[in-house]
């Protein structure tokens, strides 16, 4: 499999795509390709995306999958424009796409059943899950999916990230685009057949506190810890003497401890400080125990380096590497944000495609169920089978 990744930050959609096409032609690495994966900034008008792609690249509507991303990665570069991965299979490798809609009402529709059926059929393939941000429902959807997979006793190699975007023209643009469809309340799965792959989940935040117990919780929000202590007041103290920006708290996500599944379960990133609660980017289980943690660019990059070493042991070389890295993580990495992508490309000597996510989706440590992570870099090294 040959992959090349190019980007453009031209603010005009057509001009950005033409610039990318020019880069592809000039490089002469690929004369043609089988599939495109496109990360698109939320500011671009998306109504004519399919038309532009077909016209500029001469492709069919089912030969690409696109999604919103505030920032995307093309090799070591990060852009707030467009990044495109062009894929050409050389052996028996194949790609196909599954899409689903209706996450906000998933308990009352058949979405979960259809997804489980697809994943069971493709349990031995690599399934890259790109979802939209659906406020509170997505976290529960992923949690329930994890439970169902555990119940059915298989793990379908499901990894991915949540599209990032912002409110623009009155809508929160975290959409996916496939085969002329604009998916506003769902997800897409890019399934790779006949490929080998290795997955790494890098954290890099060190626990720094005693254990708290979340004793009053509602959904994504913690109200009280340790029976009666207002968590908002505790968190507000962290921002004492500073402008109370929630981004500062991204340096110290909480680490949920899980007695059943091992020491560290997942991290949770602060979303907002409300009137009487603190909200996170994913669900907080009632009565869970957690610790405060702290991360710096150095600890985050050190963790990614270790994960890459493990991935290399598993797969050796790669044709392409994907990096789905949390937007909060990019904030912590500050001016060293490019180094994470540099680590992946340097060690695998392969092109890299990725984006800043609103959450990462990957296996738990036992590879039994799927989890929604926060503030991780989820790396996937892929190699087409001979």
């Amino acid at each position, binding site marked *: 499999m040959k992959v090349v990744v190019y980007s453009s930050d031209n603010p005009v959609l057509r001009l950005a795509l033409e610039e990318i096409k020019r880069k592809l032609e000039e490089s002469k690495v690929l004369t043609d390709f089988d599939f495109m994966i496109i990360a698109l900034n939320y500011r671009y008008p998306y109504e004519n995306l399919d038309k532009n792609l077909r016209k500029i690249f001469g492709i069919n509507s089912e030969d690409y999958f696109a999604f919103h991303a505030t920032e995307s990665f093309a090799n070591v570069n990060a852009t707030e424009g467009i990044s495109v991965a062009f894929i050409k299979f050389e052996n028996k490798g194949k790609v196909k796409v599954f899409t689903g809609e209706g996450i906000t009402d998933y308990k009352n529709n058949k979405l979960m059943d259809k997804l489980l059926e697809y994943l069971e059929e493709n349990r031995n393939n690599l399934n890259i899950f790109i979802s939209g941000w659906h406020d509170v429902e997505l976290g529960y959807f992923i949690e329930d999916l994890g439970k169902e997979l555990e119940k059915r006793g298989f793990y379908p190699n499901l990894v991915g990230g949540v599209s990032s975007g912002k409110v623009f023209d009155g809508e929160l643009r975290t959409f996916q685009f496939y085969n002329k469809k604009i998916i506003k309340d769902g997800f897409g799965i890019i399934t790779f057949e006949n490929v080998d792959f290795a997955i790494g989940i890098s954290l890099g935040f060190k626990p720094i506190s005693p254990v708290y117990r979340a004793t009053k919780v509602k959904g994504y929000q913690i109200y009280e810890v340790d029976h009666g202590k207002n968590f908002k007041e*505790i968190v507000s*103290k962290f921002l004492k003497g*500073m402008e109370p920006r929630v981004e500062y708290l991204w340096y110290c996500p909480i680490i949920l401890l899980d007695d059943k599944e091992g020491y560290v379960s997942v991290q949770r990133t602060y979303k907002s400080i409300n009137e009487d609660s603190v909200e996170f980017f994913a669900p907080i289980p009632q009565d869970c125990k957690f610790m405060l943690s702290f991360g710096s660019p150095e600890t985050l990059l050190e963790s990614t380096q270790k994960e890459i070493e493990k991935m290399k042991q598993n797969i050796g070389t790669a044709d392409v590497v994907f990096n789905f890295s949390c937007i909060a993580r990019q904030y912590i990495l500050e001016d060293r944000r490019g180094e994470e992508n540099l680590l992946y490309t340097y060690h695998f000597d392969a092109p890299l495609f990725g984006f800043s996510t609103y959450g990462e989706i990957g296996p738990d440590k036992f590879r039994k169920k799927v989890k929604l992570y926060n503030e991780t870099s989820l790396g996937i090294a892929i190699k087409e089978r001979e």
Partner: protein
Amino acid sequence: MREEIKIRLLLNIFEEVTRKYEELLRVYEEMNEFLEYKASHDSLTNLYNRDELERILKAETMKAKYSKNVLALIFLDLDNFKAINDTYGHRYGDEILKKVGEILKESVRKGDVVARYGGDEFVILLHAKKEDEPVNVAERIKLRMEEVLKLYNISVSYGIAIYGRDGTTPEELLSTADKKMYENKLEKKKLKGQAVF
């Protein structure tokens, strides 16, 4: 700017973490105190238990050698208590023992030691100015207890050992007081023509 924010944030978190550690330390200390209390006290009467009495007695006999005060050990036993347990049951008996514990605690001065030695046996360790003072204390307690317990037909026997006069080690003092208590009990039973338990 980012460095300043990180340092400020870390300091603020450190403050909270310190507070949380102090809180945990307090809980740990309270837990330790509770465990120490449970290990040294009789759970029924909340008086010192036998182990703790022996530890205190050892320390007191070492100090008594250099003290001008009189160290006295009063050994108290309830007469006919076995009959209460046999007739009314142990729960009823336990209530009487709790009552005895309360009377004993109320009847001694601060600094004196009251312990449940085992079953219906109690020990008072007191510091007196004169050798006849412990007898007065023991008599006062006996009268008070018999007044409260007369409904149950329970009387009290006691024996007193004085440091120096009756021995200098915890074993000697306990053995002498116990022996005297038994003689006292025997005397009373003989007068009544009853068997001794």
